[in-house]
């Protein structure tokens, strides 16, 4: 919502510097997004008449314009706009002018042609948002006159305010002035319009019938006679322009002016074209067609509201736009002026469905003041009176369902308990009355009547917010509550930090791809195509939620490779979303760790898992060879912790890499952290350190490729028992000496007792026990 300081002052003697007023507006919850000083920096801009228009010999996008800047001489200007004709009056920034934006106008050559100034768009002179064409001035101005004079531009301040959805009252200049006056403690009043009534009363000429009271809370009509469509007075069109409304004609301008000033949208009908002068408010018939003012035929649904005439022909879409069939024009003399209160939810739905959101629908959606109608009608008539329009007696009015307004008991104690203040009843009453809330003392408390322009207020807490807002948030003392609890992270949150620090400690970089995928991404990664889909994605690339971290990381690798960044070690911790196995309220959402080591084979990923299992003390795990779609069929193992599968380690299937455009091998680890961290881990019991010497023995076994090294290791661990303090696989040999399809696994065992030095005989016996166990339970033979 834009407001002019001069316009605010029509309602209250607002004081202070522009910046200070801006701060007060922000502090009232009407955040100033932009403040502009109007009418400044326009000193060098004069009215000029277009004498000739010629193409630039050497450029398409600019033309040469000769103008008369008041001295009768032709002055050549290069101009990038083409909206003017010979004889038009336009603003010329003369040489030496410093524009409001700081640019200084100098004589310069553009593609070989001299330009002796600059013709200005409305935006360039601070009038409105139109930056496309040159501002065309009234024929009445004379060349050479200062633009500020020609346009009657005084200096003014324009505030662009951000108005929250709960403040429809602040969608009007008067509403903003009311708040500001309350803050400044100056009187506020909306002047009584000077609109004399004459002629045939409206009663009898128009009639209103509300057939759907849920749609229309109030429908008021007045009749204006002697209306001629002309141009608005300069002061009025200047104000509209400043607020971003392009002046159209006197009737449309008056309509917009009243809406901006008082917040009441309105519509005018050519009364002569309304059959029977009847206005019947009903829901549209499904499929009912109406041609709106913009010349578009629109098909309505039963959810839209319409105004129909005596022949039941729709003459407008409720709260959205009028129909072409009753549009006022040159032949119009009598006008029916509508000011209504529409159900906000209906208007919101219609505007959205029809794609017709406007200044009017924005106000109806938030909830207008149903009681401003009478005043706003008379204000409208007052604006058109100088052009000869007269207001017929009588307001023809019908009411449907309006929100009930109850008196609210506001407890002084409650106000202070919520705000942490120490306000007494009378101070609270004073604050509320300053914004036209009724406040009657009842003992130590207040009975508060909420004004009709504040549809957001219906409960005690709403009133408490108003007290805080007008009293000033900044005046409320600051305290810090003392938490009686101990702040902490949960064990899982601590573990997640351990996961991340372990990964970064291993030299891996954390990535955070968006969790959206394109259709086909999951399948290309070898995953099921049943990802959760987005109902209303903006683009297809964001239409599927990831069921795995795999696609996102592969895309990341491909992206980086395209920038010649290869050999990367990446990890991600993030949620994946899957169709649940059994029906449940929400999808199966869990947190995963994924690791990709580009340029590495599966062993690299196993090393990462092994470091992670150490960091989390998840020691009871096994790797079980498994074929998993999307992962390398013969280089992948399932990770079981305490017998429960928690993820996979290995390599990405080369076919998947090809599909994602990744040229390197990629070692891969993915772990379901929710499952893993729910299993026993983290227990780190102390094992006493032996003071006795240890003995080392090495054992090498020949096994076939189908026997996992882990199986041999487990067997050795079991047979050596507590005396085995360390076991490592220190060599794997494949070659002629062991033969095709076989390999030799060499293990080093360190044996040690906590209570004695092991004798040679004990060590020898243990060694034999290990050999017997391995050879006895596995297809393995001791290598000599």
């Amino acid at each position, binding site marked *: 919502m834009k407001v002019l300081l001069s316009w605010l002052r029509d309602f209250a003697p607002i004081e202070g510097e522009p910046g200070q007023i801006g701060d007060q507006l922000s502090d009232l919850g009407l955040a100033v997004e932009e403040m502009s000083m109007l009418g400044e920096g326009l000193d060098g801009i004069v009215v000029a008449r277009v004498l000739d228009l010629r193409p630039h010999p050497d450029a398409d996008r600019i033309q040469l314009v000769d103008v008369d800047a008041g001295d009768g001489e032709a002055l050549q200007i290069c101009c990038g706009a083409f909206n003017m004709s010979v004889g038009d009056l336009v603003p010329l920034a003369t040489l030496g002018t410093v524009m409001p934006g700081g640019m200084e106008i100098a004589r310069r050559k553009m593609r070989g042609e001299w330009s002796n100034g600059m013709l200005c768009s409305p935006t360039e002179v601070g009038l409105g948002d139109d930056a496309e064409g040159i501002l065309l001035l009234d024929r009445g101005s004379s060349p050479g006159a200062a633009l500020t004079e020609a346009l009657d531009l005084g200096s003014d301040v324009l505030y662009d305010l951000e108005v929250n959805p709960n403040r429809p009252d602040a969608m009007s200049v008067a509403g903003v002035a009311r708040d500001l006056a309350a803050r400044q403690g100056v009187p506020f009043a909306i002047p009584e319009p000077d609109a004399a009534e004459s002629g045939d009363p409206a009663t009898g000429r128009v009639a209103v019938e509300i057939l759907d009271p849920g749609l229309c809370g109030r429908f008021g009509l007045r009749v204006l006679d002697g209306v001629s469509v002309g141009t608005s007075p300069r002061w009025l069109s200047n104000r509209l322009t400043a607020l971003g409304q392009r002046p159209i004609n006197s009737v449309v301008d008056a309509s917009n002016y009243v809406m901006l000033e008082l917040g009441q949208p309105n519509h005018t009908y050519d009364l002569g074209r309304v059959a029977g002068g009847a206005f019947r408010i009903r829901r549209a018939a499904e499929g009912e067609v109406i041609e709106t003012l913009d010349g578009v035929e629109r098909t309505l649904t039963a959810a839209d509201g319409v105004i129909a005439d005596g022949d039941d022909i729709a003459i407008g879409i409720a709260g959205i736009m009028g129909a072409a069939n009753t549009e006022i024009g040159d032949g119009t003399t009598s006008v029916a002026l509508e000011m209504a209160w529409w159900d906000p939810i209906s208007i919101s739905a219609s505007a959205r469905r029809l794609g017709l959101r406007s200044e009017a629908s924005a106000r109806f959606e938030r909830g207008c003041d149903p009681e401003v109608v009478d005043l706003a009608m008379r204000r409208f008539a007052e604006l058109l009176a100088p052009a000869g329009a007269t207001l017929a007696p009588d307001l023809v009015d019908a009411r449907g369902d309006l929100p009930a307004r109850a008196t609210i008991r506001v407890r002084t104690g409650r106000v202070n308990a919520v705000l942490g203040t120490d306000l007494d009843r009378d101070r609270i009453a004073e604050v509320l009355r300053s914004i036209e809330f009724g406040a009657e003392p009842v003992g130590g408390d207040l009975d508060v009547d909420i004004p009709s322009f504040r549809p957001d207020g219906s409960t005690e807490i709403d009133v408490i917010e108003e007290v805080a807002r007008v009293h000033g948030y900044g005046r409320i003392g600051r305290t810090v509550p003392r938490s009686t609890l101990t702040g902490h992270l949960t064990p899982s949150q601590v573990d997640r930090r351990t996961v991340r620090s372990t990964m970064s400690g291993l030299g891996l970089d954390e990535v955070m791809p968006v969790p959206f995928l394109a259709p086909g991404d999951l399948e290309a990664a070898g995953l099921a195509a049943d990802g959760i889909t987005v*109902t209303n994605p903006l683009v297809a690339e964001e239409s599927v939620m990831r069921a795995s971290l795999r696609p996102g990381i592969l895309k990341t690798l491909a992206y980086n490779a395209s920038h010649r960044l290869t050999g990367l070690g990446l990890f991600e911790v993030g949620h994946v*979303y899957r169709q649940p196995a059994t029906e449940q309220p929400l999808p199966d959402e869990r947190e995963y760790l994924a690791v990709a080591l580009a340029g590495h084979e599966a062993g690299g990923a196993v090393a990462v898992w092994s470091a992670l299992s150490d960091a989390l003390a998840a020691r009871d795990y096994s790797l079980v060879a498994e074929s998993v779609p999307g992962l390398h069929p013969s280089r992948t193992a399932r990770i079981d912790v305490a017998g429960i599968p928690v993820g996979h380690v290995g390599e990405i299937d080369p076919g998947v890499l090809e599909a994602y455009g990744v040229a390197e091998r990629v070692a891969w680890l993915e772990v379901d952290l929710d499952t893993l961290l729910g299993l026993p881990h983290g227990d780190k019991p102390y094992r006493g350190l032996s003071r006795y010497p240890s003995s080392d023995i090495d054992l090498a076994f020949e096994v076939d490729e189908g026997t996992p090294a882990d199986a041999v290791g487990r067997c050795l661990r079991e047979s050596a028992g507590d005396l085995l303090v360390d076991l490592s696989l220190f060599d794997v040999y494949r070659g002629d000496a062991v033969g095709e399809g076989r390999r030799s696994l060499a293990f080093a065992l360190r044996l040690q007792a906590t209570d004695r030095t092991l004798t040679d005989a004990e060590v020898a016996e243990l060694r034999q026990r290990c050999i017997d166990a391995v050879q006895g339970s596995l297809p393995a033979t001791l290598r000599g």
Partner: protein
Amino acid sequence: MDMDLDAHLTDAAAAVADASDLDALSVVDTDLLGKKSLLATVRSQLGEMEPDRRKEVGRRVNEVRTGIERLVAQRRAELAAGARAGVLEAERLDLTEFDLGRRLGHRHVVTQTWERLEDLFVGMGYTVAEGPEIEDEWHNFGALNFPPDHPARDMYDTLYVDYGEPQSTLLRTHTSPVQIRVMEEQEPPIYSIMPGRVFRSDTADSTHMPVFHQIEGLVVDRGITFGDLAGTLEAFTTAYFGSGFTSRLRPSYFPFTEPSAEFDIRRPDGSWLELAGCGMVHPNVLASCGLDPEEWSGFAFGFGLDRLALMRHGIDDLRELFRNDHRFLEQF
């Protein structure tokens, strides 16, 4: 004989000094002190001397011998030190050859900001709560006092997912639904923050992403006031940004808080930055979680986490956080 011994000591000193390495010194050592040395010869002749003379010469031989031994030991130490220095010199390394720029991995800059905020609030007595990113309509809107079809829902460009009834399940538009989950699951007092990932139907540009991160705060206890909210955010401002920063609250609107406010911070240069939405938990929200608003009150706040990460490092494009260019990742 006395003269001979004196001269011998002088000669011996010269011979020891001349020994250029440990092997040569060993030969000299044998010559001077061995069984065939002059001293050994003289000693063997002592028995043939007069007792007085024998005593005199014997003492003198011992003196010379001790002197030579000391000289040899000194020289041996010198030569050994030299030899060791030679060996060590031969091991000389250019250590700059090994400065290969080896690096740790990097946690994502969003993670770093996330954890920094967690640590700060844990220090203020808060716990950290989390919730699902795919939410139901009730937790994201209904329980937060957004009536069905209320225009306030338009403040959020919601992405829905095809799950259950149409428009029943969505990508949470804010972390506020976690407030509801916490209040449903836990009795007050509640002092929690809720960091997490949120979604909006937005086209990516330098300040917007369809996915980003927020951190929510919720306090519910007896006697919590708007002043507590202001004070808590001021304490946070100073702790997170530094002592040169202050804060203010401005009236705003959110369906789930009332009074509602925008939380702005003031930079040391005097400029203001809008950082968060906040307010007193709306009585309807407390009631929808089964809490009596007359007994319990609370405040909530929520702000964009990514922007804090951008601010800390002077990153000018939000998209960079999600592009995962390695040249970006390794900077933090």
